[in-house]
């Protein structure tokens, strides 16, 4: 037999002239409806034939029986051979699925466009298109036209089938192969913010779905006599949720977790006769899913003899508490539940949020003694779920109880595992909400939840974010933008690309900052550039947005620039955590910075401030005065973008701008600028001097993105500062509809009186207050200024 087209020696192409391909076409023609029709006619003809022979004694009945066989034989052929069309060998044409072979037309299977046109409407092709947000014509237009590319695509399809342990090469694998072998499609995907690797990921997702569907049909749960050797559980049915029976009734899809380390560890512990297990993991890590996977494995009898057909019953502490009328009844219920579980002989009790049973948290009650006695008796297997903190608390407060439990620590899934869970979640969301979840939305949910949700673990936090994105779907499609909007709404962060207005503001950041502060152009430009880089997403996401060391004399605008950054980038001057580092000069002061809980509010904890307000400017004033322990801590903060509290919980500084200020070398800067040197010319030498004088360690200076030198303000610039301050006075007077203006002579007088070379612009505020605000107040009180008045003050008018 000749293939449909010429083949190169190294590749195989589709041959539609094989016996298998012919069978696939007949199989498609004889579909499910025809099969049912043949069976009905066959059975009817058989019955009629027998009736005619027996009742009428007519040999014509044989004709009817022949008709019955004419229907039955092809029906059986279709059902057992043509429909499944299993793989007949290991070469390409022996493995192509019935759908591929039946849909392809002779003469078109030798080029990608022909294969695409035949398979493009198959549901598996739509699975790709929908999740990559592409259309059929778009892909068709970008397919590789090189005749050799189809061979390459089919090789990829075979590789994907092998990787997924699929004996058949499904249409989805061929589709993926064609997309991966077409550079044009890769470019198209890039344009749509997808990645070529997503195609392969979707092929694996599809293969997993097909395999799970096949397995689902074969799920068995022990037969009719499964529970006859075990006891009744009326009380547990009332208070508990039987995971196992739920799975047996509605099915489950926890196969992927059934062989996880967590499930294996629980099984091994119970096989070794452990009485209780402490299942430890942070929120979102999948403690409950692990128990569901265990329940599925047990109810399918896929465990050792000791645990086969055991059922997992989850008990909710809050439900039990709300039912009991007092502590006595509560104890009675708890003991009855344990006794019933023990007597039934096949129950594993599961307590989610177990600390609620041990007197921790709202809605809790203390069942420690009851649990202690039940676990000691080892009459019923128990699993208690804890977060790491709760487990630590239990170990501290009640070591005897903790020692009776075998701890099973769950580890966070790697990215591939989380994406697999998100794929399952997406299918659930799609079915429930009648929407479509794009693959890039899933990736974005993974990325953004990792970045902005430090409190929970994967995969829970990514699942949560994907669910939160559903209301932001556009035309019933959840995209990466939907996920970004969801996180922006729930966390108050800027995750999406800058909108035109915002982009404009970022591009003009220097101008915006200069509306608030005078000169220091170099400093403003350095900071503005860093913020633009961060917002455009080109900086290292694992470090703070920007970190700067502002060096210069007092009163030259260091703090004002920090405030301007807070106002222009984070939207408010209040988005700033300010710490005077001269208050942190003792070794123990590190604890104050990292304190959590009740003492945090009293100690001005940096950690808690940033946890409460993660999108903020952290201003560390007079950094050189802090103790070296604190400077070491700062090294970690600048390097990793995070700090860890005593409980091991991480606080992220990745969305902060870190600004440290210092007056170190202020005199040197003032003198050099006074001699006419520019900041840029002596900055490197100045840095060396700071290191040599021991004021800063080189490793600290190297950690900052930029060291920014501020120069003293000239009298002209101080005049501009005065004008800015008058602007602020006018804002205050706006509600009285009064405006104030200073003549140049008045400004010069204020500068002269308020300028102190050591203190920069700082005394200016006091001078202005005395000179302008006092004068205006007197005019208002004397009735010389009313609503609508414009007060012009000259030098002699000023009360200084």
């Amino acid at each position, binding site marked *: 037999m000749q293939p449909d087209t010429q083949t190169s020696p190294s590749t195989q192409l589709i041959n539609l002239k094989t*016996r298998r391909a012919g069978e696939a076409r007949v199989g498609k023609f004889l579909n499910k409806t025809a099969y049912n029709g043949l069976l009905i006619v066959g059975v009817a003809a058989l019955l009629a034939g027998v009736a005619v022979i027996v009742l009428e004694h007519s040999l*014509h009945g044989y004709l009817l029986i022949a008709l019955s066989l004419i229907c039955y034989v092809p029906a059986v*052929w279709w059902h057992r*051979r043509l429909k499944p069309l299993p793989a007949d060998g290991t070469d390409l044409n022996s493995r192509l699925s019935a759908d591929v072979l039946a849909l392809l037309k002779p003469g078109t299977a030798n080029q990608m466009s022909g294969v695409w046109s035949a398979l493009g409407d198959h549901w598996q092709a739509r699975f790709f298109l929908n999740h990559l947000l592409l259309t059929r014509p778009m892909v068709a237009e970008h397919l590789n036209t090189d005749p050799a590319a189809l061979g390459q695509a089919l090789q990829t399809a075979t590789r994907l089938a092998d990787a997924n342990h699929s004996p058949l090469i499904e249409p989805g694998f061929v589709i993926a192969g064609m997309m991966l072998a077409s550079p044009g499609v890769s470019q198209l995907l890039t344009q749509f913010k997808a990645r070529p690797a997503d195609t392969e990921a979707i092929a694996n997702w599809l293969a997993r779905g097909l395999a799970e569907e096949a397995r689902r049909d074969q799920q068995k749960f*022990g037969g009719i*006599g499964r529970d006859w050797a075990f006891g009744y559980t009326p009380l547990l049915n009332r208070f508990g949720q039987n995971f196992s029976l739920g799975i047996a009734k509605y099915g489950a899809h926890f196969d992927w977790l059934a062989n996880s380390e967590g499930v294996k560890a629980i099984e091994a512990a119970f096989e070794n006769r452990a009485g209780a297990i402490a299942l430890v993991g942070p929120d979102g890590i999948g403690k409950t899913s692990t128990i569901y996977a265990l329940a599925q494995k047990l109810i399918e009898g896929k465990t050792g003899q000791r645990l086969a*057909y055991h059922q997992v019953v989850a008990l909710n502490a809050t439900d039990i508490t709300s039912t009991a009328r007092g502590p006595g009844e509560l104890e009675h219920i708890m003991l009855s539940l344990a006794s019933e579980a023990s007597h*039934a002989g096949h129950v594993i009790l599961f307590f989610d949020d177990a600390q609620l049973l041990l007197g921790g948290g709202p809605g809790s009650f203390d069942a420690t003694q009851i649990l202690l006695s039940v676990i000691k008796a080892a009459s019923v297997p128990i699993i208690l779920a804890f977060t790491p903190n709760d487990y630590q608390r239990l170990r501290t407060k009640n070591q005897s109880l903790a020692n009776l439990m075998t701890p099973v620590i769950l580890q966070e899934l790697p990215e591939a595992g989380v994406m697999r869970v998100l794929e399952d979640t997406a299918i659930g969301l799609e079915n429930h909400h009648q929407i479509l979840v794009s693959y890039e939305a899933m990736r974005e949910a993974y990325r953004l939840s990792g970045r902005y949700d430090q409190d929970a673990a994967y995969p829970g936090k990514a699942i949560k974010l994907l669910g939160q994105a559903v209301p932001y779907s556009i035309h019933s499609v959840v995209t990466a933008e939907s996920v970004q909007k969801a996180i922006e709404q729930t966390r108050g962060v800027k995750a999406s690309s800058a909108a035109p207005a915002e982009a404009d503001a970022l591009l003009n950041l220097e101008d915006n900052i200069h509306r608030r502060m005078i000169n220091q152009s170099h400093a403003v430009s350095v900071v503005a550039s860093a913020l633009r880089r961060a917002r455009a997403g080109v900086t290292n996401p694992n470090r703070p947005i920007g970190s700067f060391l502002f060096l210069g004399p007092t009163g030259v605008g260091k703090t004002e620039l920090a405030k301007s950054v807070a106002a222009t980038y984070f939207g408010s001057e209040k988005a700033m955590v300010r710490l005077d580092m001269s208050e942190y000069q003792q070794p123990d002061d590190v604890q104050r910075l990292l304190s959590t809980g009740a003492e945090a509010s009293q100690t001005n904890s940096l950690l808690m401030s940033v946890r409460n307000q993660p999108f903020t400017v952290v201003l560390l004033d007079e950094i050189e005065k802090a103790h070296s322990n604190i400077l070491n801590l700062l090294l970690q903060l600048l390097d990793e973008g995070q700090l860890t509290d005593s409980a091991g919980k991480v606080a992220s500084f990745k969305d902060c701008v870190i600004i440290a200020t210092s007056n170190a070398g202020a005199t040197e800067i003032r003198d050099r600028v006074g001699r006419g040197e520019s900041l840029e010319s002596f900055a490197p030498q100045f840095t060396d001097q700071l290191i040599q004088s021991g004021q800063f360690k080189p490793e600290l200076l190297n950690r900052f993105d930029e060291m920014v030198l501020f120069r003293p303000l000239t009298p002209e610039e101080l005049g501009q500062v005065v004008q800015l301050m008058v602007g602020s006075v006018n804002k205050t007077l706006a509600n009285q509809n009064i405006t104030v203006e200073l003549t140049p002579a008045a400004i010069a007088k204020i500068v002269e009186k308020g300028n102190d070379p050591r203190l920069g612009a700082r005394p200016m505020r006091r001078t202005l207050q005395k000179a302008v605000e006092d004068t205006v107040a007197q005019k208002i009180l004397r009735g010389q200024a009313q609503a609508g008045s414009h007060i012009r003050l000259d030098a002699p008018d000023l009360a200084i």
Partner: protein
Amino acid sequence: MLVASFFIWWYGRGWKQVALSIKPRLSSVAYTFSVTQLLRTLFAPWRRIITYPGSSLGERLKAWGDNIVSRTIGFLVRLIVLGAALVAITTVSLLSVIELILWPLLPPAIPLLIILGIV
């Protein structure tokens, strides 16, 4: 070619498939009736309904009697179900063997039956 495909399959893999499907079919019937479980627990008390013996002789005798009743009920129920399983397994076995024997005869039976019907 299509007719050849049919006959090659019918007298080749198809027939083999029918033979190979007998064992899983019987296993499935046995599983549906929980045969292994029931045999393993044949004399176990019905749904663990048991009386724990007290300290006095009377209480012990009563508990023994109660437990014997529970075990007898369990045994009878399981025996009945095992009987039903046996019937089902026998029926499925017979039908499977008949299918296996008749399988090669079905295609040639069609022209034969037509000739018989006409003649």
